[in-house]
C-alpha cells in the first residue's frame, strides 16, 4: 500500500498544528544545559583503556622501522599497535574513486604530517602519551608534494605508487552548446580564484570507545558518529568483519558540520581492543590531532572561470576549470565536494550552457573531507564574483543583473544544464524583500557619500541556491554508487498510550529530535514533552543515514509521518472492529480515533494501544497486537546519471539573497562588516528557531571562510596551523548579527513542504563578503580573488593599487 505523506502542515490530522511551523523550545536542551548529555568522553566502561596515537612529523617518508619495545615495557601499557598489525588485520580505507585510501596506521610510508604510525592503549591517557615518547620510528624522508602544480609535474614523486600518478581524476563535463554561447557572447568575463583550505572544527573533536568481542569477533563502537550506519559498514569492510558484526552506538555530538572524522581513530581503537584481549579502548582526538589530521579540512582549490554575457546582461554560459587539492588520498571523501556542485552548478540563473573541467590531485597535505556545504560554497564564490565582475563591465547594478537572469517562478520545476531539477522558488520575491529590508538604495547613497570622503565602502548582493536532501546519485561522477538515502523511524505506543519515536541517529546540534517530536506531537495530538525520541544503535535501529547533505529535517519528517500513517491505518482497523464499522469510517483527529459520521464517538490513543497490547480477545481476528510502525523514507523520482553526470539528485532547492556592507581599512587591509541582511526561502519552516539558528551559525562559518580561517601549509607541505591560535575561528566580535526575514515557497515534493536548510548561509556568505570587498576596492582598480581575504592579503592588494 502506498503511504501518502502530508504535503503541507494543514494536512496533519489536527485542527491547528501546535508545534510544526512554530518557535518551540527544543526537547534536547534541558540535558544539554545541565551538562548531563552523554557526549562520548563522559562515558566510561569497566576495564576501559585509553588510546594515544603517534603521528608522523614528515609529510612524505618511508617508514623503515618501528621499535615499540620500550613502550610495551612501560607499566600501565596494555597494547601497542603498529603498521604490521593493521596490515595483518585490516584493509585500506574504501574510497571513491577506488584505490586512494590508506591503512589506519601507516604501512610502509606516510603521506601527510599527522598520519598515525603507531598507537598505544594504556590505563590512562597520560601513561599512553608517556609511552608514545618511548616509540622509535625510523623514517627515510621522501621529497614532499606540497601543491597540485608540483604533483602534476612530470618528475613529481608519486604518493600512491601503485596508482602511477598523483592525478586522482581528470574529467570535463559539457552541458549544452558551450562553445556557441561563448562565441556569441558580447562579453566574456574571466578570472582566476584561489580558495584556501578551511574546515569544520566542531567544538568537540572526534571520540569513540571500541570493544572487540573476542568470543565471536564482533565489534561495538560507541562514539561521536554523524552517520552511524555508514561508518558501521565502512568499519566492517576495513576490519574484515561481516557487516552484521559491527555495532555502532551513536552518542550526542558536540557539532559536526561534516568534518568529524573518525574512521582511523575507530579502527585503531578497535584493533587495540582486539590486541589487548577485548578491553574497551577509548580514543579522544585532541585539537592538535584534529587540526593536523581530523578530516576537518576542505576545499583547497584553484579556479579559472568565465561567464558568457550578452550586451543586455543576459548570462548565457559558465565555464569553470577547477584544480582541487584533495590531499593525501581520498579516505575523507573529499572527492564528493567536486561532484556536488553539479546539483546547482548555474546557481539561481537561467544559464543555458556550462562546462566543468575538473582535476582532482593528491598532495602531501592532509586528506580533505566533508564540510558544511560540501563543495558549492567555493563554487558560488566563483560564480557570484563573476556576476559582479560582469555587472561592473556592463555598468549595471549587481542586484539588477541577477534579477534579469533569475529562473522565474513559472519555470519550476526547472532543470539546470548540469541535470538537477529545482523543485520551486521565487527568487525575485526574495531579492525584493532583502532590498527593501536593507534599504538598498539608501545603502548605495551612503556608499557614494562615504566614498567621497575617501572611505573604502563596498556592498555585496549575492543570490545562491542550496541543494537540499542529498542523494548518492549526485556523486556518481566521482565513483559513488547508489540511488536513495533511506531514513527510518519507528513510532511506538506503549500500553498506557505514551509515544516513543525511535531514530537511527543522535544529536548533533540541529535540533532534529525536536523536529521529530514536533511532527509526531502534531500528528498524534500530543504535547511536545509527551513524545520521547530515542536513538537506536545500528544493529537494532531502522535503516538510517543521519545528518548530512541538508536532509535530515526533511527525511526524518517523512519517516515519522510515514510511520504514523501506517500506524493510523492499523488503529482505524481496531476501532472499526470495536465499533462494528469499517476502517474507512474512522479518522484520527487531535489525538482521537473517531467516527467520521459521529465525531463525539471515539477512542483515545491509550485505549486503542492498551486494547492492542492487553485485550487480544477484542482485536480483529488475526491482527498482530503491535501498536508500532516503522517507515523508511527516501526521496522519490531520483534518476540514474547520464554520461555527463546529469540526473535528478538533490530533492529540494532552497535559495537566499544576502546584502552586506563592508568597510576596508586603507592602512591595514582589515575588513569590517557594517551591515548584514538575509532573506531566504526554504519552504515550510518546521521550526522557526531551528532554521534561524542554522542560518546565523552558517553565516558565522561563512564569515570565517571569507576573512579568517585557513589551513596554512609551507612549501614543504608542513602544516603551520596546529592550534586555535593559528586557525582563526570567528568569535562573538567578528560575526555580524544579521537582520533576517524569509519568503515561503513550499516544496511541492517534500514532506510538509519543507526544504533542506541545514547548510544554509555558508553557500552565500563567503561570496557576499568577497563581492562587497571587491565593490569597495573597485574605485582603486584592483580586486582580490583569494580567500580568506585576510588583512594581509587585502593590504597587499591595496599596495598594488598604489603602485599601479
Amino acid at each position, binding site marked *: 500500500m502506498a503511504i501518502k505523506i502530508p504535503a503541507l502542515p494543514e494536512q496533519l490530522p489536527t485542527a491547528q498544528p501546535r508545534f510544526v511551523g512554530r518557535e518551540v*523550545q*527544543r526537547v*534536547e*536542551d534541558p*540535558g*544539554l*544545559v*545541565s*551538562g*548531563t*548529555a*552523554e*557526549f562520548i*568522553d*563522559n562515558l*566510561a566502561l569497566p576495564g576501559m583503556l585509553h588510546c594515544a596515537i603517534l603521528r608522523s612529523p614528515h609529510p612524505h617518508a618511508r617508514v623503515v622501522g618501528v621499535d615499540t619495545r620500550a613502550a610495551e615495557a612501560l*607499566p600501565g601499557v596494555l597494547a601497542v599497535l603498529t603498521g604490521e598489525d593493521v596490515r595483518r588485520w585490516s584493509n585500506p580505507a574504501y574510497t571513491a574513486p577506488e584505490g586512494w585510501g590508506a591503512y589506519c596506521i601507516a604501512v610502509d610510508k606516510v603521506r601527510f604530517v599527522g598520519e598515525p604510525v603507531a598507537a598505544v592503549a594504556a590505563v590512562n591517557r*597520560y601513561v599512553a602519551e*608517556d609511552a608514545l*615518547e618511548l616509540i622509535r620510528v625510523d623514517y627515510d624522508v621522501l621529497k614532499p608534494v606540497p601543491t597540485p602544480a608540483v604533483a602534476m609535474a612530470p618528475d613529481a614523486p608519486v604518493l600512491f605508487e601503485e596508482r602511477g600518478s598523483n592525478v586522482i581524476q581528470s574529467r570535463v563535463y559539457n552541458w549544452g552548446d558551450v562553445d556557441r554561447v561563448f562565441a556569441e557572447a558580447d562579453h566574456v568575463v574571466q578570472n582566476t580564484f584561489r580558495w584556501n583550505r578551511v574546515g*569544520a*572544527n*566542531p*567544538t*568537540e*573533536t572526534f571520540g569513540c570507545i571500541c570493544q572487540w568481542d573476542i568470543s565471536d569477533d564482533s565489534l561495538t563502537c560507541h562514539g561521536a558518529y554523524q552517520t552511524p550506519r555508514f561508518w558501521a559498514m565502512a568499519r566492517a569492510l576495513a576490519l574484515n568483519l561481516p557487516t552484521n558484526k559491527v555495532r555502532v552506538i551513536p552518542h*550526542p*555530538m*558536540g*557539532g*559536526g*558540520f561534516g568534518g568529524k572524522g573518525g574512521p582511523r581513530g575507530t579502527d585503531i581503537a578497535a584493533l587495540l581492543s582486539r590486541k589487548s584481549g577485548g578491553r574497551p579502548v577509548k580514543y579522544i582526538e*585532541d*585539537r*592538535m590531532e584534529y587540526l593536523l589530521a581530523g578530516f576537518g579540512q576542505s576545499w583547497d582549490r584553484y579556479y579559472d572561470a568565465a561567464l558568457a554575457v550578452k550586451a543586455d546582461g543576459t548570462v548565457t554560459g559558465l565555464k569553470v576549470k577547477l584544480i582541487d587539492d584533495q590531499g593525501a588520498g581520498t579516505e575523507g571523501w573529499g572527492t564528493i565536494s567536486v561532484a556536488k556542485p553539479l546539483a546547482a552548478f548555474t546557481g539561481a540563473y537561467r544559464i543555458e550552457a556550462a562546462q566543468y573541467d575538473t582535476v582532482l590531485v593528491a598532495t602531501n597535505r592532509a586528506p580533505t573531507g566533508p564540510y558544511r556545504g560540501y563543495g558549492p560554497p567555493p563554487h558560488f564564490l566563483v560564480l557570484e564574483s563573476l556576476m559582479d565582475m560582469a555587472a561592473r563591465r556592463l555598468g549595471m547594478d549587481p542586484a539588477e543583473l541577477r534579477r534579469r537572469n533569475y529562473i522565474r517562478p513559472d519555470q519550476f520545476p526547472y532543470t539546470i544544464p548540469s541535470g538537477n531539477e529545482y523543485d520551486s522558488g521565487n527568487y525575485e520575491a526574495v531579492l525584493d524583500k532583502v532590498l527593501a529590508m536593507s534599504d538598498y538604495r539608501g545603502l548605495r547613497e551612503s556608499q557614494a557619500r562615504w566614498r567621497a570622503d575617501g572611505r573604502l565602502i563596498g556592498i555585496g548582493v549575492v543570490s545562491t541556491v542550496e541543494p537540499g536532501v542529498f542523494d548518492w546519485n549526485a556523486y556518481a561522477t566521482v565513483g559513488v554508487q547508489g540511488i536513495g538515502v533511506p531514513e527510518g523511524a519507528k513510532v511506538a505506543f506503549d500500553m498506557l498510550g505514551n509515544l516513543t519515536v525511535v531514530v537511527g541517529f543522535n*544529536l*548533533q*546540534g*540541529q*535540533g532534529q529530535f525536536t523536529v521529530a517530536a514536533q511532527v509526531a506531537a502534531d500528528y498524534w495530538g500530543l504535547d511536545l514533552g509527551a513524545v520521547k525520541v530515542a536513538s537506536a544503535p545500528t544493529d537494532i535501529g531502522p535503516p538510517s543515514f543521519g545528518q548530512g547533505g541538508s536532509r535530515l529535517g526533511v527525511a526524518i519528517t517523512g519517516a515519522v509521518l510515514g510511520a504514523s500513517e501506517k500506524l493510523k491505518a492499523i488503529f482505524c482497523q481496531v476501532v472499526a472492529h470495536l465499533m462494528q464499522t469499517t476502517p474507512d469510517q474512522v479518522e484520527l483527529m487531535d489525538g482521537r480515533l473517531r467516527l467520521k459520521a459521529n465525531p463525539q464517538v471515539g477512542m483515545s490513543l491509550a485505549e486503542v494501544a492498551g486494547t492492542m497490547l492487553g485485550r487480544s480477545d477484542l482485536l480483529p481476528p488475526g491482527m498482530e497486537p503491535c501498536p508500532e510502525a516503522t517507515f523508511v523514507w527516501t526521496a522519490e523520482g531520483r534518476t540514474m546519471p547520464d554520461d555527463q553526470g546529469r540526473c535528478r539528485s538533490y530533492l529540494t532547492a532552497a535559495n537566499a539573497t544576502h546584502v552586506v556592507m563592508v568597510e576596508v581599512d586603507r592602512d591595514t587591509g582589515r575588513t569590517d562588516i557594517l551591515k548584514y541582511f538575509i532573506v531566504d526561502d526554504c519552504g515550510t519552516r518546521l521550526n522557526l*528557531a531551528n532554521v*534561524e*539558528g542554522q*542560518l*546565523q*551559525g*552558517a*553565516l*558565522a*562559518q561563512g564569515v570565517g571562510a571569507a576573512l579568517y580561517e585557513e589551513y596554512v601549509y609551507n612549501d614543504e607541505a608542513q602544516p603551520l596551523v596546529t*592550534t*586555535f*591560535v593559528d586557525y582563526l*575561528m570567528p*568569535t*562573538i*566580535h567578528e*560575526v555580524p*548579527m*544579521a537582520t533576517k526575514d524569509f519568503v515561503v515557497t513550499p516544496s511541492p515534493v517534500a514532506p510538509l513542504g519543507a526544504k533542506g536548510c541545514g547548510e544554509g548561509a555558508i553557500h552565500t556568505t563567503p561570496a557576499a563578503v568577497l563581492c562587497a570587498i571587491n565593490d569597495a576596492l573597485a574605485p582603486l582598480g584592483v580586486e582580490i580573488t583569494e580567500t580568506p581575504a585576510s588583512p594581509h592579503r587585502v593590504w597587499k592588494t591595496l599596495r598594488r593599487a598604489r603602485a599601479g
Partner: protein
Amino acid sequence: MAMSTKQGICITVNGVRHEREVEPRLTLADFLRHELALGGTHVGCEHGICGVCTVLIDGRSARSCLALAVQADGCQVTTVEGLRDRTTGHLHPIQQAFVEAHGLQCGFCTPGFMMTTLELLAENAEPSDEAIKEALGGNLCRCTGYESIIASVRLAAQRLREQKRT
C-alpha cells in the same frame, strides 16, 4: 618522564569538599571530569583558546584545561553542575534563558558560556550588548553564530534582576 609522586589536595566543588591524591600533572578539567565524574565541563582545545572548559575558581572564570588540579588546592570551584537548584531541581535562570532564547545548538560549548555568564552577571546585573561581547569574547561557539547567545545572556540578566526584586 618517570611516574610522578602524588600530591594531596582538597578542592571544594559546587559546595562539596573533595580530598584526593593526584599527580601534579593532572589538569583541573580531567580532575573534575574523570576523578569526580562531573562531565558537564567539556574540553574543546586543551590549549586555552576555545573557553569550552571554563569554570569558576573562587568566583573568577578560568580555563580548567590550563589549570592543574594541584593549583586549585584549597579553592572553591563552580561548574555547570552547580547551577541547577539542588533542592527544587529547577534550572538556574541562566540555564533557563539559554533554553528559551535558543542560546545553544550542539550544547558542547554551552557550559563554558554559562559559567562566563555567571561571572559577568555577578558583576554587572544589566550588561549592554558590548559588555556581553566583551565578557564572552574568549568563548568559541561553532554552531550558533552568537546572536542567540547574546539574547540568552540578556534574558538571563533580566530574569535575575526580577528574581532579586521579588
